[in-house]
C-alpha cells in the first residue's frame, strides 16, 4: 500500500496492476473474474470494518 495515496487511489492502483499482470501472463477470463471478485470483497470488507 502506498501511504501517499488515498484508500480509493490505492484500490485503483491495485486493480490496474492486477489487470496488467493478468494480461502479461496470458489472460484467463474465468480466473481473472474470480480473483477480481475476491479483491472487491476484500476492499468491501475493509470498508465495513
Amino acid at each position, binding site marked *: 500500500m502506498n501511504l501517499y495515496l488515498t484508500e480509493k487511489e490505492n484500490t485503483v492502483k491495485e*486493480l*490496474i496492476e492486477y489487470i496488467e499482470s493478468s494480461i502479461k501472463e496470458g489472460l484467463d477470463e474465468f480466473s481473472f473474474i474470480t480473483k477480481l471478485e475476491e479483491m*472487491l470483497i476484500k476492499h468491501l470488507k475493509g470498508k465495513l470494518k
Partner: protein
Amino acid sequence: MKATLKLENIGGRVGIQELDFKSGVVTLIKGRTAAGKSRIIKSYALALSFPIHSDDLMEEAINFGILKSIDAEYLPLVNSSKDKASIELKYNGIVKKVDLFRDGKIKINENGNHKFLYCSMLVKNSRIHNHITRGNADFKWIVDEMSLAKDYEIILRSINNKLEELTNKKEIIEKNRKIIKEKTGEIEEELVKKAEFEKQLKVKVKQIDDFEFDEALVRREDDIQSKKTSSKKVLTNQLKIEKISKEKLEELAKNINVDKKVKELRGNIKEKGDEANTLKIIEVESLQKDIIKIQGLKSQEEQEMVRYETRKQLWETVKIEEGNKCPLCQSVGKITEEDKVSNIEECNTKIEEYRAIIKEFSKEINEKQNKINSKHGLKKLEDEIVNLVNKLEKVERSLKESEEAIMPEQKKHEKILKEIELNKQEINKLETELIKIQEDKKKDEQYQILINEKSDIDQKVGGIREKIKKSEELIKKSNIIELFKLKVHDLNNASIIIEEFEEIFKEVNNHLDFKIKEQREGAAKKFNKSIKNLIKELKFYTFKEIYLDLEEYRLKIIDNNDDSQELSSVSGGEKSIISSLLQISAKETYLSEIPFLIGDEIILDLDPERSDIFLNYLKKIAEEKDWFIILTQITNQDLKIIEI
C-alpha cells in the same frame, strides 16, 4: 532448413505419406482436383494453429475444413474408413504431433498459435478475403486479434458488468428506501390506533374489576379464597417437612447401603491375615523352633548355676571348727579356712561362667524373637489387621444404628405424604368451587357484555401488534443489501460504498480505454506500414494509398486523385490483389516468428503479370526470411511438388 510432414490416414489417402519441404524457396504443390493438395495445406494449418481459443477463429477453422462443427458427425480430415489419423511436422528442431479422432477429438503435443489462421493462410474463404470480396471495410477485428486490445476488452466487459451490478443495486436501494418509508408511516399510524385501543382496554378492565356481583356469591368467593390461601400455606410447610424427611431417609439408606464397604474390609482383613499366616508358617516356624531349643539349653545352664549358688551358700554358712562335717559329703574331718575360701571362690567362678552363658542364650533368643516380630513386616501386618477389624466393627455398628433408625423415619415420611395428598385434594376442591363461582359470575349478562367488549379490544390490539411486527421485519430486511456476496446492513452506508466503487471502476475503465486505443493504434500503425511497403514492392500503383484509419479501423482506399474509394466500388481483380496484399502484410506484421506461409490458388488466380510480380515477391521474402512458402496450383496431372 527442411520441414518433413508425415501424414497418416489424412483425407482421401489411407496409410502413411511423408513429404519434405525446403525453406528459402516457394514450393508449388501441383495436381488435379482431389489429388490431395488441400489435405497437405490443411494439415499444416491444423498442426500450426491448434488449439483455437476464439469463437470467430473456430468458425473459420470449421469453414476451412480442419475442425468439425457441432452438427457434423465426423472430423473432416480423418479418412472416412479410419477411426484415427495423425500429422507429424518436423522443422528446425521442433516436432509437432497431432492425433485426430473420427469423433472430433484432437490431441496435440505442443500448442500452436491460432493467429496462424488469420496471418499465414493465403486462402479463399479466409476472413480477410471474405471481408474484401464482400466489400466490408471494417477491420477493427484484425487489430483486436493482433494486439492485446481484445484481452483489455474482455476485462472492460467484466468491469462494466460489475458497474451494471452496482447500478442494479442502486435501484434496489431506492426501492427499499420507499418500502421503509411506507412501512414506517404505517407503523406510526398503527401505533396511534394501538394507543387508542389500549386506552379503551384500560377502561374496560376497570369496569370489569369494579363490577358488582351478587353479594352472597362474592362473600362465598372470599371465604373459599381465604381457605385456599390458608391450605396453600399449610401445603408449603408440609412440602418443606417432606423434603427434610426425604433427605434424612436418603442419608440413612446411603448408610445401610454399606455392604460393599463391609465386604471390602473383610476381604482386606482376610488378605492381610493370609499374608501374616504365610510368614509365620514358612519362616517364623523355624525361628520359633530355634528359640525353643536355645531355651532348653539356657534352662540347663540355669539349673547348673542354681546348683553352684546353693553350694556357695552352704560353704558360706560353714563354721571353721574341729570335727565339722563337710557340707558336701558330710564326712567328719578338719576343714580349714583355706578350704572354705577356696570352695566359695570356685563356686563364684562357676556362677559367673554360667551367668555369662545364660546371658548369651538370652541375647540369642531375643534376637530371634525380634527377627520374628520384625521380619517381613509381620508386626505391621498384625497392626493393620487390628485397624481393619476396628474399622469393620465401626461400620457394622453404624449399619446397625441406621437400620434401627430408618423404620420410624419411613413411617414419618409416609405420614407427611399422605397429609400432603389430602391437602392437595382440598385445594383442588376449593379451586373447582372458585371456577364454578367464576362461571356463575359470567352468567351475569352485564358482566358478560363487558368481557366480550374487552375480548374484542384485545383482538384488535393483537392484530395491530402483528401488523407492526411484520412491518418492522420488512423494514429490517429492506435495510440489508448484498454487495459482492457480502451483506451491508445500512442502505446509506451501502450507497456511499457503491458510489466509491463506481468511481474506482470508472478510473479503471479510463485506463482500459486508453490501453485498448494504444494497442489498436499500435497494431494498425504496424499493419499500415507493412501495407505501404508491400504496395511499393509489388508496384501496385492502381491506388495511391491503402490503410486502416486510426479512429474506426476501417480500410481506406485513396485513389491517385486523392479521392477516397469505397471498397464495394473496387473491381473484383483489384479486390483479389488487395486481399492478397493484406494477408501477406498481416503475416509480415503479426506472425513472422512462424516460418510458414501457406497459399491456395488465390495468388495464381491473378492476371499473369500480377501473378508473376506476387510470385517473385514471395520468392524474395522466402529467401530473405528463410520461410517455407507453400502454394497449391491446379493442373491436369497427378500430385507433384516442385520448388520454384
